[in-house]
């Protein structure tokens, strides 16, 4: 059953027995709100770049939180909870690819959304190039790079999120980084600002 099959007409009836459902969750509403404020934006960014689809990212985020709330967590540690949430999101994204995209790489239309929006022409162009560069990577490579360089996760944490062996993360991360660097260097133009930021 999908949690999105909910109509506003059901709001009233949902108030009944709310306590029973809450009992199924491992945190109360207040704690959830705090956790959500801290993790929702990073999770959305991660999933939107992983999936290449904003609407899909929104769905995945909500489903991730639902599954997270229902899960029996072994620890109340915030880092552990965040990694657990990211793992759920990653698995949901993978399931989606398996169902809809037999090939690993994202199709061109998956990154076309990056050209739309209300940002300046410069940032759109930049985004398009960066998005295209990312799209040339395999989903797993995007996962690893994002977790390592954006979330600042350790190899152990990346292993927890991705389900890979910790010992293999270093090599896979190195390969993914090298591949992205080559794509960036060969694409030129749009990555100028990134290079300017990175250039000594």
């Amino acid at each position, binding site marked *: *059953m*999908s*949690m*999105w099959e*909910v109509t506003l007409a*059901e*709001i009233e009836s*949902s108030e009944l*027995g*709310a306590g*029973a*459902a*809450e009992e*199924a969750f491992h945190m109360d*509403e207040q704690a*959830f*709100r705090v956790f*959500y*404020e801290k993790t*929702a*934006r990073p999770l*959305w*960014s991660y999933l*939107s*770049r992983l999936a290449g689809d*904003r609407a899909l990212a*929104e769905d995945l985020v*909500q489903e991730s*939180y*639902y599954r997270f*709330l*229902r899960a029996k967590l072994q620890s109340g540690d915030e880092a552990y909870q965040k990694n657990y949430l990211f793992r759920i999101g990653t698995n949901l994204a993978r399931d989606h690819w398996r169902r809809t995209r037999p090939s690993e790489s994202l199709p061109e239309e998956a990154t076309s959304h990056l050209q739309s*929006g209300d*940002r300046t022409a410069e940032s759109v162009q*930049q*985004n398009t190039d*960066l*998005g295209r*560069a*990312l799209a040339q990577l395999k989903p797993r490579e995007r996962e690893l*790079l994002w977790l390592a*360089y*954006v979330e*600042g996760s350790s190899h152990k944490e990346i292993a927890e999120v991705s389900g890979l062996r910790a010992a293999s993360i*270093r*090599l896979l991360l*190195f390969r993914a*980084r090298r591949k*992205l*660097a080559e794509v*960036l*260097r060969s694409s030129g133009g749009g*990555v100028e*600002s*990134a*290079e300017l*930021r*990175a*250039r*000594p």
Partner: protein
Amino acid sequence: MNIPECHREQEVLEAVRAGRWSGAWGEELRKHAAACPVCAEVALVAAMLLEERDLAQAEVRLPSAGLVWWKAQRAARRAAEERATQPIALVERAAWALTLFGVFGLALWQWPRIAGWLGGAKSLASGPGSASSSAQFTERVVQTFQSLAQGLGAQSSGYLVIASVGAVLALMGFAAYVVWREE
């Protein structure tokens, strides 16, 4: 595989992530990266990904925490309802299966009479002199079942009745248990 690495890799990454890379604080690291291909690559990739994150954060579309909480509650309740009604659905399916079993048993038991009715109906439907091949085939099928039923029906009709009664009692017991557990 030999992975090229540098002991300042993490330091470079932290500087880029913290926004210290391009400032005066990052000068020494930038000089290092100029001579270190590993750190230069780390800085390039990290800077690109962080720009992508900034762009992503600018386009974030998220529902409120309250809405997500409410939807999760709603979904959990639905799941609980489904779990609660699962035994009832199971009893329903068992009842259907039992009914079919009973009908089949009854048909087997009373096959001679049924075959007689079928034979009567067939002779009514087919006029005189219209003995087609399909009618002959039907007759053969009826005769086959008739002989089968005579063999089986006489011996096992009693067992079938006992089995049906037993199954009904078992189903009633199971339904009573389900009701008792839910209450």
